[in-house]
């Protein structure tokens, strides 16, 4: 059980949740997630935990942070929690973004919607390299909090919104696509809706640029026992991969998209 330090609305239906995690022993890496229990005491409804990617983590201050959007039952319950209350979290879970061998220049991070959340901790880890961040969402209000955070890191960011013109009016994909005309990256990280992952991957594979995506699959358990989150491998001979254990981060070309 971790105590809530703050849980504030930072955009339209978007919340920033900060937990004190003194007891947490494991290291938390960019791309990993926690699975959060949202049923109250003596209650089995809602039954399943809800997975949220780690937005930020600091081992020194012992804080783990999330950014989430209220989209349904569970996230609405979460938004009603107050500082001082405690949450039951399972994690950190999943395989993180790989970082060790990214000493190359020109790293692009592409995030769509709430897929932006896990890219922040990643950017923090990579921030001494020349990284460029491409973010898209419905409107500026959904991006403001993220944009400020990335700006404070001192990394280069590009913004797009569907409903209004920022750098462009459109998706993160189109934003990035435009930029590719001036520079091809040496490695790409992408997180967001499957159509974004898929399109970025196709483009990158064509240009022979390696990279990783983080996929959001409906999860039952989050730790590998139920096979709810199976992703079919692109390699016909390989067995399925679990988004919660082998993923949510996969290399370009590793898994098929379907939803």
């Amino acid at each position: 059980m971790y105590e809530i330090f703050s849980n504030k609305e930072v955009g339209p239906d978007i919340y920033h949740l900060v937990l004190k995690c003194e007891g947490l022993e494991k290291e938390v890496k960019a791309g990993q997630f926690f699975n959060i229990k949202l049923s109250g005491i003596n209650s089995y409804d809602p039954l399943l935990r809800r997975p949220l990617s780690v937005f930020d983590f600091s081992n020194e201050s012992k804080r783990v942070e999330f950014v989430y959007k209220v989209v349904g039952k569970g996230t609405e319950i979460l938004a009603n929690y107050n500082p001082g209350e405690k949450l039951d979290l399972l994690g950190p879970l999943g395989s993180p973004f790989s970082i060790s061998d990214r000493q190359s220049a020109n790293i692009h991070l592409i995030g769509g919607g709430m897929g932006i959340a896990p890219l922040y901790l990643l950017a923090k880890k990579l921030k001494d390299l020349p990284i460029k961040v491409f973010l898209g969402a419905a409107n500026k209000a959904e991006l403001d909090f993220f944009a400020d955070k990335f700006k404070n890191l001192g990394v280069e960011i590009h913004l797009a919104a569907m409903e209004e013109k920022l750098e462009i009016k459109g998706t993160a994909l189109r934003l990035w696509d435009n930029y590719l005309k001036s520079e091809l990256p040496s490695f790409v990280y992408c997180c967001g809706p499957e159509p974004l992952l898929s399109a970025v991957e196709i483009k990158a594979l064509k240009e022979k640029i390696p990279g990783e995506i983080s996929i959001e699959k409906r999860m039952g358990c989050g730790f590998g026992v139920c096979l709810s989150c199976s992703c079919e491998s692109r390699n016909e001979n390989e067995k399925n991969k679990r988004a919660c254990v082998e993923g949510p981060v996969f290399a370009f070309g590793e898994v098929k998209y379907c939803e």
Partner: protein
Amino acid sequence: MSDKKLDLRTILKANKGDDLKLSNPLITASGTCGNGEELNDYFDINKLGAFCTKGITVDAQKGNKTPRIAETAAGIINSIGLENPGVDTFISEILPQCREYSLPIFANISGYSPEDFLTLADKLNDRPEIAGLEVNLSCPNIKGGGMIFGTDPEKVYQISKKIREIYSGYIIVKLTPNITDITSTALAAQKAGADAVAMINTLSALKIDIDKQEPLLANTFGGLSGPAIKPVALKMVYQSYKKLEIPIIGLGGVSSGEDVLEFILAGASAVGIGTINMLEPTAALRIIEEIKSYLRKHKIQKLSSLIGAAH
């Protein structure tokens, strides 16, 4: 009463062969606990009474398309579709891991035809790693498959009998609740020589995505499990207890010590824990403690003395 005196052991009587002695009544429900490894990261699974593997089929299966899971009030609907590496890989890769555990292990087998079950029983016969088979005649997620057999007492009898002829270990026949009278299939399994029955598998169920205006699961229907179904499972165990001579493994929604006690009082000799593990990997440890406090409070020494006591 001191903790040392509390006796949680339970015996699964065998029809032929040796009775199985479990250190406590908790058995993992197939498909909700992987093959042990993942859960073992959270606690020593030897603390369970027994372990039941994820369902195996003759050939490897990729399972159904996703989404494979939907949430409902106090329940989940799954249509995993028996994703598994096939029995040969199971034998070569998963069974060796099983040697690391000291508790009895059941292999859960599923088939698309009666012959499949026999192939599986044959290949798994005399494997020292496993104590027995759980024959899943009730999987609702495969077309033309398990559930069709499971709702027909005659087919349950035929398949169970053939398996009994070729398999010498402990045989549990797992029954479907999607039937007018579960005692008919339970009795058929008993008559065929099964050592025990497990009830219940999931209830056939549906969820619709109202935004997409189509079934939420890629496979349309799925199986409902979790606390929501406990009252139905418990009724079936209670109803079967007096009619059967072989042990019943009760399961369906068990999430607490109270739930385990309900099943035992209704007549179960052991109890499966499924969905709860998905939310709380250490649930078994909590449940064992809850059972112990109940025994202490009521000054009962032997848990097994409560089997069927609510009748």
